[in-house]
Structures are given as C-alpha cells and as structure tokens.
C-alpha cells in the first residue's frame, strides 16, 4: 500500500534519514522505532509532504506521490497525527475536528465527530474549549481524532502514547486494533516499545537516520541484542 524506496530526507543540507526502504501491507500495523533523533518523525513528515525528499521515492497505491503537495496526499488517504500534536490552538475542539473533516463532504461531519467522541469521551466534554487550553493528554486525543476525521486509509501516528494516562493508552491501542480490523493501515512511532511490539506486525528500527533492523515484530521481540541496543528495553 505504502512503499518507500531508498527514501532520504532532511532539512537543507542536513540528512535526517538516508536510504530507507519500507513497504506497508494494507491492513497492518507497522512500528517505526528508534532512539531520540533517529529520524522517525522526519520520516512521517516526509511521507506527509512536509520534509524535503532528498532521494528515493514514495509510492502510495502504486502511484508515485513523491512530488504531490501535502493537501493532495491527504486526499489520497494519508493522515497524520504529528509530533507535538500541532493542533489549531485558537480553534475549538469541534472546529479542529471540522478541519479534519474538510476533505470529506459536510454531511459526514456529525457522524465522524460522534465516532471520535465515542473513542475519546473526554473530547466530547470539551467540544467548545479552545484546543490550546486542553491538557496534554486531551490534546493528544484530539490530534488523533482530527486525523481520523479525514477517513484515512493510512494513518501515521507520532508518539501515540506521549502524555497519555495508562487507561487511555489501553484505549488507544484497542482502538488501533479495531481500526486495523476495519482495514486501515497504520504506521506507528513510539517510545513505548513494548506496546508497539505487542500490536505491530512489522517493525523497522532506525538509528541516526539509518535502518538497523527490519522485519516481523515477533522476531524483534526475540532479538535480545536488538531490544537491548536500540529499543531501550530492559
């Protein structure tokens, strides 16, 4: 479904990620792991079209989307819940969701919004608050909810559990499984390695922009050298 071929990306002369090849199968969860600064966020932002592609290509559904502007990519079905949430702070929670639903017909809005609220009831209580005033965890929920509003086929979530309480993390992972069951493809970036390894089918581990390991999640779990050296498990 999504294919990265020898992707390199970065900022100006700086290469954040080099030579990354990755292929996501439809309906799977793929974990992108690695230490701070490994280039995970850069990869996601590059797929979304915000970080300059310096080499290689990105294919989605078999089409090369490397040169498409970000707003075209989301229309093809790629949504992102970025690092740092990047909410529209001066807009209310509901309007943030509305922006998420802009590429869908207006008639879908109510239904999709209710779906997101069903997922994160806390958001339902704060619909008229400004997004900037939400607590850290609420913001995270909204960022994911906003991405879901685009009715994506591929959703990329950066630091899913960042700032979330254990209960909500459980909830999110349960939701991921559900989304996956409904056929959505998921690309997940996490520091919470254990959790990723428990839900993902495929795993790719980055270190300083290079791929150091790629394969099935199950194999990763059993590879102690890997978990020790790169995944910070103990």
């Amino acid at each position, binding site marked *: 479904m999504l294919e990265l071929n020898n992707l390199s990306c970065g900022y100006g002369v700086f290469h954040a990620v080099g030579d990354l090849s990755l292929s996501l199968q439809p309906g799977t969860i793929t974990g992108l792991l690695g230490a701070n600064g490994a280039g995970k966020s850069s990869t996601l932002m590059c797929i979304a079209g915000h970080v300059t592609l310096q080499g290689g290509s990105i294919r989605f559904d078999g089409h090369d989307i490397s040169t498409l502007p970000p707003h075209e990519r989301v*229309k093809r079905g790629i949504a992102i819940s970025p690092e740092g949430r990047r909410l529209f702070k001066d807009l209310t929670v509901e*309007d943030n969701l509305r922006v998420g639903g802009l590429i869908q017909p207006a008639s879908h809005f109510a239904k999709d919004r209710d779906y997101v609220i069903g997922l994160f009831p806390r958001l339902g209580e704060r619909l008229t608050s400004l997004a900037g005033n939400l607590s850290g965890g609420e913001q995270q929920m909204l960022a994911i909810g906003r991405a879901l509003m685009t009715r994506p086929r591929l959703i990329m979530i950066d630091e899913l559990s960042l700032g979330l309480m254990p209960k909500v993390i459980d909830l999110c992972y349960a939701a991921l499984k559900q989304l996956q069951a409904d056929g959505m493809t998921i690309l997940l970036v996490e520091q919470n390695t254990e959790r990723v390894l428990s839900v993902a089918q495929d795993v790719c581990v980055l270190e300083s922009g290079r791929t150091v390991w790629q394969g099935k999640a199950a194999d990763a779990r059993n590879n102690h050298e890997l978990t020790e050296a790169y995944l910070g498990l103990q």
Partner: protein
Amino acid sequence: MLFLELIAQGLVQGSIYALVALGLTLVYGLLRILHVAHAALFTLGGYLGVMVTNATGSLSLAFVIAMVAAGLTGVAMYRLCYEPMLKQPPFVALIASIGLYIAFEEIFRIVFGASGLSYMAPPLQQQVELFGGLQFKQAELMVMAGTAAIIAVLAYLQTRTRIGVACQATVSDPQMAQSFGIKLQQVRDINFFVGSALAGFAGVWVALLNNLVEPTMGSVPSYKGLAIIVLGGMGSVRGTLMAALVLGVVESFGTIYLGKLLDRNAIAFAFLIVVLMLRPQGLFARS
C-alpha cells in the same frame, strides 16, 4: 439633532475605516503581518475610480475596475513581497511594507502628478433628506449601506462556514492545515484579493466623498487601520467593523468637543490607549 448628525457623520467615516481595516484584518489574521502597504491599494482604487469615471462616464465600471485591479495588485504584493518573508520576524515584513507603501505613493505622484485628480462631474452628490431632517449626500448613504452588507457577508463566511474554519486553521498552523487538504496558496490569494478589493472599493468612495484623490491619501488609513484592527481584537471581521464605527464616532465627537485639547489623531489614539489599558486584548476580542 446635532447629536444625531455627529453620529451619522461618525458612521460614514467609520464605514470607510472599516472597509480599509478589513483588508488589514484579513491579512493580519492570516499572516500576522502589519500590512501598511494596504493603504496604497486604497489610493490605487481612488485613482482608478476617478480615471475610469472620467474616461467612460460609468461609475459602476469604475468600481469594478478599481476593485479588480486593487485585488490583483494585493495578490501580487503577497506573492512577491510577503510570501518570501513569512519565516522572518514580523517587523521585517512591516518595514518592507512601509518601503512598499512609500514607493507606491511616489509612483502615484510621479505618474499622476502631486496635486491629485478630481472627477470632472462627480456623481452621487445629490442631497438626500432622511427622517428628522438629517441630510446626507447620496454617496454617504450608499457607502454606509455597502459597508454593512459586505461585512455581514464576510462575518458570516468567517465564522459560520467551512471556508472560514479553513482560513482560521491556516492562521494557526499553516503546515498542518495543508495536511488536512487546505491549499495554502489559494486561501491566502483569496484573502488578499478580497481584502485588497475592499480597499480599492473604499478608495473609490472616498474619491466620491472628497472629489479628490492624492498620492498621500493612503497615509491616514495606513495607521488608523492598524489602530482599528487592534481595537477590534485582531483578526475578527465583526470586531473590526465595530471598532471602525466606534472610532469614527469617537473622532466625530472628539474633533468637535475636544478639538481644542488634542488633534484628531491624538484623540483616536488616546481612545485606543485607554481601551487597551482596560482591555489589553482589544475591544471586541473573544476573551
């Protein structure tokens, strides 16, 4: 009676302010830039209004041409001037904008002469008598009505529609807005076009009211407009309208009753400062 007339005159003045300030508000709301050169578009509108009317005799054609030309010039300003500066601190754009404004003022002077232009046969000058003996020029009435209508439409668009939400999202985080299907370029072009066209529109009206367009006619709106968008709470269409009208009326009374103490600009800005001290977020801002 005098009281009513002063209010009415304040509203006429306020309507003009509102039309000019609205473009500033749109630009400020979108890019957080104090767009001083906006006033040059107002001047452009005035000149085109007079010239087209004098050449063709048709005021409506003059309006159309002035608005389209001002709108396109505005878009060009954005593309050539502001777009490359978006990543810079805001005063960079402010100074560039001032430079641009000075250059435009000079171009008008060099091309059309320093002493300005007038209508050969100024239209819409008939007197209209309203209830209670209030007298207006036809042009004055129309400018008020036109402003009210335009602003109502814009306010509706801004707060009630998906387009409005899209614009606001662009303001908040342009990059993310793109990731939700919003075409940045398009949103900004449209905003600049609309805002600038309104300035052009206002320019034609002022030309009608004063029967004089001059290279320097934009200088007052250039800074009063800034005061108004601040009063209006920065970025809201309704706030801008209210602030412009209030300022118009305050000036109207102020020049009559405080004229001995302070000049018109000082009155307007004294009002602004008092308001900001009491409400630092502006008169009509959402809390």
